[in-house]
């Protein structure tokens, strides 16, 4: 009989112990960590290493650093990157390989960062944007080099 009531007492005590903790957090809402996304969109900053999408930075003269060596295309495990090259006529009369279009299929990308690591001229970096949802699948196919852009001087 004593044991029977002892068990009941211990059981109720263990439940109350848990309830006490729950009650503590219920009355102290400041200790709860919640990301208020999307309400905090204006102030939300991602970490600088966050892998959101592959981007190609251009400077103010609309110049990029991509030489068209296709190292990223080889490094990509999913065939996300397709580089179409062209032969560009140099001022000294020689022909040089340059990129025509840098096609990036966002829908195939797994953000593994292998293309960025493989790039010898730091032409591509990982961008921080992560809101990629669109209504049409075709919008996920992106051309990274801006229209009319050319390679920065001195990048080989």
């Amino acid at each position, binding site marked *: 009989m004593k044991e029977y009531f002892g068990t009941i007492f211990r059981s109720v005590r*263990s439940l109350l112990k848990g309830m006490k*903790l729950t009650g503590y957090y219920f009355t102290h809402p400041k200790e709860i*960590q919640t990301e208020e996304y999307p309400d905090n969109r204006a102030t939300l900053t991602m970490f600088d*290493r966050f892998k959101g999408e592959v981007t190609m930075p251009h400077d103010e003269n609309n110049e990029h650093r991509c030489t068209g060596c296709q190292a990223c295309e080889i490094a990509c*495990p999913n065939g996300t990157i397709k580089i179409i090259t062209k032969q560009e006529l140099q001022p000294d009369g020689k022909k040089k390989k340059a990129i025509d279009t840098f096609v990036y299929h966002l829908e195939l990308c797994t953000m593994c*960062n*292998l293309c960025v*690591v493989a790039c010898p001229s730091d032409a591509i970096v990982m961008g921080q944007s992560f809101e990629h949802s669109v209504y049409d699948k075709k919008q996920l196919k992106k051309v990274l080099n801006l229209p009319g852009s050319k390679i920065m001087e001195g990048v080989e």
Partner: protein
Amino acid sequence: MSLLGEDIVTEDGEFVINIGPQHPSTHGVLHLKVWLDGETIKRIQPHLGYIHRSIEKMSESLSYRNFIYATSRMDYLSAHINNQACALCVEKGLQVEVPDRAKAIRILMAELTRLSSHQLWWGCTGLDLGAVTPFFYAFRERESIMAIMEETCGARLTQNYCVPGGVMYDIHPNFRSRVKDTLKQIRSKFTEYEEILTGNVIFEQRTKGVGYISAEDAISFGCTGPTARGSGVSCDIRKLYPYDGYEKLQFKEILEQGGDCYARYMVRMAEMKQSVFIIEQLIDNIPEGEFQAKTKMVLKLPKGEFYQRVETARGELGVYIVSDGAASPYRIKYRSPNFSNLSALEKMATGTKIGDLVAIMSTIDLVIPDVDR
């Protein structure tokens, strides 16, 4: 009436039901066919293949640098440890010496992954057994670990931070202070975990004595990790076959003799504390130096077979590479912990009530993408 071509009620009067593949308590697309006598389980048959992505076959057409990212999608809760296993196996073939700094970073990340994985498991176990609150508490601490991962690796779950020869880039300058803050936070919450779930009378009654498996059965089914250690089988790869410098660290292999759900629960709870202990030893002693060994542009493994095993949060993961000397593997085989642990489910659950099946499944800690690959 028929279901999957068989009668719902068998000749012996057993009732056949299908749990899953879309069931919240199976933690993924696991399909269990259960033969019931009243509420007592007579037989269980897991049906696999719903999330098979043929990662092994896919890897055969990828180079030794490229195939590692796919293993993040196997056991996605210990993604870093999977990547580490592949990187270690390739390094074994290349005979590359990994710098001490890279080794230390890898262990730190692996233990943080283990910690976050066990925290998610703790929350989900509570959720499965009817306690919703632990889920939110567990995710609160897990969030700060995810922030560490995001800051240093660039992703929260599928990091792809290990590369053959070391890690992809050096740790973030804020890494040390962030880890220390997180450890301080987690240490103070362990008592809360015990207050809210471990000592709870309902939880104890639903797990103690439920889902028993003996040490002999655990070995014969090939169980590893906390599932086997809950039956007293010593199988911690970090102790038995140390890799990446685990031999220099002090930690205990947690063993429980109970063999039931409660023992497996206690093993994981104690392992969390051991992970914190390992991280504390390393965080102030990360050696200086290179974070990546110099490797060739195109990796080619010599002809032969290479095997590397690591301890993930769920058990032993083995990576077996057969190389014919080319730039991509001839054959890759993953020995995944969840597949073997799942095979012991029938032994554990036969004779118990159907309500206990949920408790058994959540203490095996199944991750279905790792079962199917």
